[in-house]
């Protein structure tokens, strides 16, 4: 197995000690099949135990290890070292406050995610005894892509609009709202529209599309947001031109 030495430049920040973030360099001997997360784990295990970063599954499922790798929002467990030059710079996700080293404060996203009610709001009252809510494969296909979101927040980090306007509800939250709106078992669309059809929600999106480019699960949040815009426009005309028509 071939081994390659890389310079890992890691952003370090300790709120108790540092006035501002700084970079620390580590020389890491990497195996060919290593990802950036392996290199960080090597640093933590053998070189510097004080380094802080989030990770869990090491297989692009948990969404914990999102960080900037050479300036691009990436899951550290999906970024193969062999695809990068000998010097790799690792920083915490852009557009989020730093808690410590590579760990960011996620409160803003968590609060926004809950606001769009990303859960099934049953469309019809059904007792447990009357059986399951059935769904055809075609009905499932309408929204399945949007269920793949792992809340890794890479899309928020890539979105220039979120960087400019922190109130923006953002790609993942709106894409997840869209996922439940499209679900044949769901009846909560009117409630969610009150949140996502506002100025600082879907209408803040200028369709840059960076969210879909960085999404590690191919959710295509940018596509979801354009569909939400179209549906919200139809809503607007119905509400203002045909107010007597029931939804």
């Amino acid at each position: 197995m071939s081994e390659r030495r890389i310079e890992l430049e890691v952003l370090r920040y300790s709120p108790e000690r540092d006035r501002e973030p700084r970079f620390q360099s580590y020389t890491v001997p990497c195996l060919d099949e290593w990802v950036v997360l392996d290199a960080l784990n090597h640093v933590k295990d053998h070189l510097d135990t004080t380094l802080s970063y989030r990770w869990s599954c090491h297989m692009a499922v948990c969404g914990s290890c999102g960080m900037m790798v050479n300036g691009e929002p990436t899951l550290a467990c999906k970024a193969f070292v062999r695809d990068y030059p000998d010097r790799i710079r690792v920083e915490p996700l852009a557009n989020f406050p730093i808690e410590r080293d590579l760990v960011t404060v996620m409160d803003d996203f968590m609060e926004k995610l809950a606001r769009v009610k990303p859960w099934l709001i049953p469309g019809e009252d059904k007792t447990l005894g009357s059986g399951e809510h059935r769904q055809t494969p075609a009905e499932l296909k309408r929204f399945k892509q949007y269920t793949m979101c792992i809340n890794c927040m890479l899309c928020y980090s890539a979105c220039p609009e979120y960087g400019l306007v922190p109130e923006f509800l953002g790609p993942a939250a709106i894409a997840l709202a869209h996922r439940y709106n499209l679900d044949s078992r769901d009846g909560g669309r009117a409630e969610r529209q009150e949140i996502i059809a506002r100025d600082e929600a879907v209408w803040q999106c200028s369709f840059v599309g960076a969210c879909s480019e960085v999404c590690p699960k191919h959710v295509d949040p940018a596509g979801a947001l354009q569909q939400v815009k179209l549906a919200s426009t139809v809503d607007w005309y119905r509400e203002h031109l045909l107010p007597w028509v029931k939804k």
Partner: protein
Amino acid sequence: MPKSNKPIVWGLFAAGGTVTAFITPVLVVLTLLAAAGHVPDLLTYDRLHAFAAHWIGKAVLFGIVFLSLWHAAHRLRITLHDFGIRGDALVAVVVYLFAAAGSVASAVTLLRI
């Protein structure tokens, strides 16, 4: 905070984008063909003049011009925002005024035919 009224401008923008994507390339090709002296029989001056003289033709042409201009104006507004230029209200007024002026000019021209 109520629902947004952005659908008014965005609906026209989306319609204009569709028109621009499908019609504009055709118009460019036909214009180049005409400039090179290859005017198809269907698109001779007399026929196109007759098309523009009919009220349906006028409506179609006006729709294409108005939606394309609106689309371009809105796109420019958003692009300026993305470039970090603040002052959306001023930008919006200027670009939409351009689109409105162009639309009025096309309406006047069409009505004179």
